């Protein structure tokens, strides 16, 4: 995977984090290297990207931070529901 962050990925893509942007708060929110999540929604006007982690709960990540993620796509997995 190329490093293009989360911003270019389509909604409903499931991915795994390979490299985190430099933002200490992310860890407290449970996003670490190896965390898998599903892209749920992209807010307009370069707004935050909403992702859903395994706990069925969603997290809004700033566009700027989201663009610095390094992720790889994962097929299926625990996250795809319905």
């Amino acid at each position, binding site marked *: 995977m190329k490093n293009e962050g989360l911003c270019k990925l389509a909604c409903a893509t499931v991915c795994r984090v390979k490299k985190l942007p430099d*933002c*200490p*708060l*992310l*860890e*407290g*929110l*449970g996003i670490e290297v190896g*965390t898998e999540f599903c892209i*749920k*929604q*992209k*807010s*307009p*006007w*370069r*707004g*935050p990207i*909403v992702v859903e*982690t*395994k*706990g*069925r*709960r*969603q*997290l*809004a*990540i*700033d*566009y*700027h*931070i989201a663009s610095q993620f390094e992720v790889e796509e994962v097929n299926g997995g625990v996250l795809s*529901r*319905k």
Partner: protein
Amino acid sequence: MAVSCHENKNHVQTEGKKRVLLMGNPNVGKSVIFSTLTKKRVITANYSGTTVTAMKGELVQAKPEAVLIDVPGIYSLKPVSKAEEAAMTMLNEGADVIICVLDATNLERNLQLALELKRKETPVIFLLNMMDVAEKKGIQIDDKKLSSLLQAPVIPTVAVKRKGFNRLIAEINKVISGREHGKQAPLTDAMPPVLIGEEVQTYIEYEESWTDKWERWTIQPKTGLPIAILAVLLALAFVVGAGKAVRSVFFLPLLNNYYIPFMERLAGNWTTEGTALYSVLVGEFGVLIKAVEWPIALILPYVFLFYIVLSFLEDSGYLPRLGILIDGLLRRFGLHGHSIIPISMGYGCAVPAIIGTRAASSLKERLIISALVSLAVPCIAQTGAFIALLGDHSFVLLLAVFLVSFFVMFISGAVLNKFLKGTLDPVLIEVPNLLVPSASALWKKVMMRTKHFMIEAEIPMVFGILFAALTIETGALTHVSFILEPLVVSFLGLPPEASVALILGVVRRELAVLPLLGMDLSLAQMFVGSVVALLYIPCMSVFFVLIKEFRIKWALSISAATIILAFVVGGMANYLIHFFQWMALGGGF
């Protein structure tokens, strides 16, 4: 809320009593638990950052006596905002036991902090809260297994229904009475949160429920934006419409048919009509009449209805979703998506809104929000006054005042963003579950806020009205307002009495509008007067909060800026209206 209940008590004294800390991630239900266990009401809402300072209360059923402390929510032990710093101070002062509240719908993320707390010396009791919501979302948790993995008690609870509280109290008493002290095994090599989560949770496949559908609709742009517009219109229609109805069906007839005649007769017994005393008591600014008419008949219905709407929005968890949706747009105006929360609160009262900014992580953001709320966001009391003044004549003018408010807010936001040092924080928000607010919680919150308005508004109102009555009736006005008069009369095009409104506006925001009611103004004058009142200096309480939260330098600059802007924009409005009138009369040709 009352400034007094938000006092920054950095050192909570416990007077030899046991200290019990209530900790956890933001928005997991700590304050609900605190209110229940201490019988002390604190504000709760369905978004993170509701509690911004530690609150202390007697733990009612504790033996020996103990003090429970509601600590602002934190994500980790590294504080990033003022609220989180307050939380760390509490933790560092030590405790006899920590109650760590976990959100059952979000276990992995909550375990992060849980493990950090468990590694401290203090015994920990874990609560697995929101079990009802977890169940609805098809999440099952094995609390026994979790308890053995965490080496500490884990109690499943539903805070809003008080489920699990007996066991909680028993566990607390066990620890603070020393029966169980030191029995908790230290956690040496804990599994990472994700693995613990996998061990104890099972997800059940289930049909998408209505709540799930709404959760999706409110956050996805194509449905979310129309919903947002609809929500704002509905809220407006409800507050304005129902407020007017209550006023005209109930309060005004009561006032005009019974109260005023009664008071006039009463005053007639003491003195005769025409004397100064008579006027001061029941005249144009008669204190016996206006001190009841203004706060109760004109403003109270709106205050009450607005707080119903605000509390509903807060408890449902809709506001943060809207914030996420329009963050990209707000950012261009120097605002963070999450600032939609303090700004909505500001439409009620600026004081809690400004205190609420403690949850923001940068000074720049706190300053921008506080400045905008002080400048361009009318509090509900002032809005009520606008409706009383303009609503009966022209709904378009009322709308125009709000448009001016938005316009000024966005422009000043963009300007402040440009000139204040620092950058805006990135958004990183947990999206709260949408919850159906409980009626009793909603009612208590609305009553608490309405009562607070009555206490906060009535005394300054009486003094303000007395001042107005005395200055106008006795002719002292000319001596008091000689500085303001040229500005008011020639620049703003208002009658000289209007300067009373400006003087009173320093005390409370609605008092900058209400005196205009009895002045026979033209529509243009009403509009100009409203615009000036809107932007004009925030009230006294806001000024003091600004001093307390920031430095006096900022409080003074914000207030000075609001006064200058009020006159500039008001004057511009006056000249523009005259210009258009002149054009319309064909004066240009």
